[in-house]
């Protein structure tokens, strides 16, 4: 049921409530059972996000705060490093199509239920269980420009030894290394989403297409892909939210936001401002910007997340 449908049912619930003592009890118990989760989310999520909005208009230092209004935002957007940070976020978006397309392709291959597909599915999904800190440590070994670096020895062994890129060492390439690592990490999750989507497609449609003489490529483009649209958008949005709001641990260990502001994204900027520089007001202002960004991106999810039809 979508949120809208749930809202449409509201009058019914109201009528039921008036009808009988049992309905009145249902109403009471409903409220009672909602209380724990409402108290938890209210006190530890909704109040803090409200405070973030309030303090975003102040010069808060953690103890005292003075209202400075929209000047806080004007000041933030006029800071050159903040513009760099927003640009980094924009660049991150470029990784999303790749983070969606690669697992989509592999999901197509697995969905033929080729021998051993379950094994491959488990293996590809496994990185989901590994923490960003561990992934970051391994990524640093991978991109290490020294002789022990995995990428470097890979290039050496494939006859490309003349080229020794040091992605993590330069301001304009560190983010690329973060993006590559990100694509690797979300591969499994997106693949699982697509496999689930493909399993909802009726086998009869494929059989009918085969009878009509459609080749496997035609089937892919004309049947599978259109039916998967919902899942593709879902994976796209989830990946984008991850890229914007879940890479803190990866960045702090892998690059610490650097060199310079080269790999500082908005979420890392917030942490830096607040907890390294004790500039809580600026952190809150940037926090609101992140909130608005993520919220705008996730709005279509409300429509996609249908519990039943």
């Amino acid at each position: 049921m979508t949120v809208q449908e749930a809202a449409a049912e509201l009058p019914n619930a109201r009528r039921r409530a008036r009808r009988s003592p049992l309905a009145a009890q249902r109403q009471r118990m409903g409220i009672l059972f909602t209380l724990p989760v409402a108290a938890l989310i209210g006190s530890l999520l909704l109040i803090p996000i409200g405070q973030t909005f309030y303090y975003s208009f102040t010069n808060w230092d953690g103890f005292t705060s003075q209202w400075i209004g929209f000047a806080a935002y004007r000041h933030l957007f006029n800071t050159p490093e903040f513009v760099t940070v927003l640009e980094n976020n924009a660049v991150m978006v470029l990784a999303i199509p790749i983070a969606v397309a690669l697992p989509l392709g592999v999901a197509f291959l697995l969905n033929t239920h080729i021998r051993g597909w379950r094994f491959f599915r488990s293996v590809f999904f496994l990185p989901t269980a590994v923490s960003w800190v561990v992934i970051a440590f391994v990524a640093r070994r991978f991109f290490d420009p020294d002789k022990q670096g995995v990428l470097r020895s890979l290039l050496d062994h494939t006859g490309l030894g003349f080229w020794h890129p040091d992605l993590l060492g330069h301001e304009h390439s560190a983010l690329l290394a973060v993006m590559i690592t990100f694509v690797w990490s979300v591969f499994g999750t997106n693949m699982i989403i697509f496999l689930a989507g493909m399993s909802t497609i009726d086998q009869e449609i494929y059989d009918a297409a085969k009878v009509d003489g459609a080749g496997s490529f035609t089937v892919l483009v004309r049947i599978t892909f259109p039916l998967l649209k919902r899942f593709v958008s879902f994976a796209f949005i989830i990946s984008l939210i991850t890229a914007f709001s879940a890479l803190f641990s990866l960045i702090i260990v892998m690059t610490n936001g650097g060199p310079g502001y080269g790999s500082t994204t908005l979420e890392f900027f917030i942490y830096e401002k607040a907890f390294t520089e004790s500039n809580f007001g600026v952190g809150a202002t940037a926090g609101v910007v992140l909130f608005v960004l993520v919220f705008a991106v996730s709005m279509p999810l409300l429509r996609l997340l249908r519990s039943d039809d």
Partner: protein
Amino acid sequence: MSALEWVERQRGDVWRRRTGRALTYLVLFAVTAIMLYPFWLMGQMSFRSLPQYYLGKGFSLTTWHDLFAALPIGREMLNSTLITLCSIAVILAVSTTGGYALGTLRYRLSSLVFLIVVCSMMVPMQSMIIPEYINLARLGFINHYYGAIAVYSALGAPFATFLMTTYFRRLPEDVIEAALIDGLGYGSVFFRIMLPLAVPAIATVAVLQFIQIWDDLLVGLLFLQTPAHRTITVGLETIPAQHFQNFPMEMAGSLVSALPAVVVFLVFQRYLIRGLTMGMSK
């Protein structure tokens, strides 16, 4: 089409199918190598001493000795386990009751509450973590297990409640009505009927949250700053600062910290898959 042509064409088809399959396996094994390589790297490097690492060969247990000497691994694993399990317990308690209220009882305004739950799912952690930190610091919650447990529970509760609500909504109304006719109240319906029916959804929430909380760094970094309360993920993050460029130790620590979540993943993978796609597929 003559018979001969037909045979020719069939032969072509077989050949095409065979190359197709070979290519598929080629791609799948290549991806397997890319996905498993980090694990192999961690294992291999952790069994080398630092000089052996620079040499690129050799076998030694020095790194493992050093790791256990440098970090209170046992303590940190215990901290992680305790915090993860307690947070999961809180999340399950509030999400099953909340899911029952919002998915089954559906009282007046419950759809509004559900909308708020869905919206709070989308609040990025960094946007609320500053006031959260200041608030809990004022209450004296920093460097106590319960502070971190409170934050993890609040962060996990919205999605868990969403999952539970959609799950309970799908259970048929007749079951509840039959129980009510038998004289059960709404409270006992929850404990005696709904909760046992919800075991698969409970498993899904538990596995998802286990991996999320075990692997988290930021909350641990802010709310558990003393070594005695640190989780294994936070302890792991301190290795580069304490043992500069001791890469084998980083790898050994990574392996230890990743192991529990990987085991949970391998055992309960089924539930994890369901959780990721719940609300999407039928």
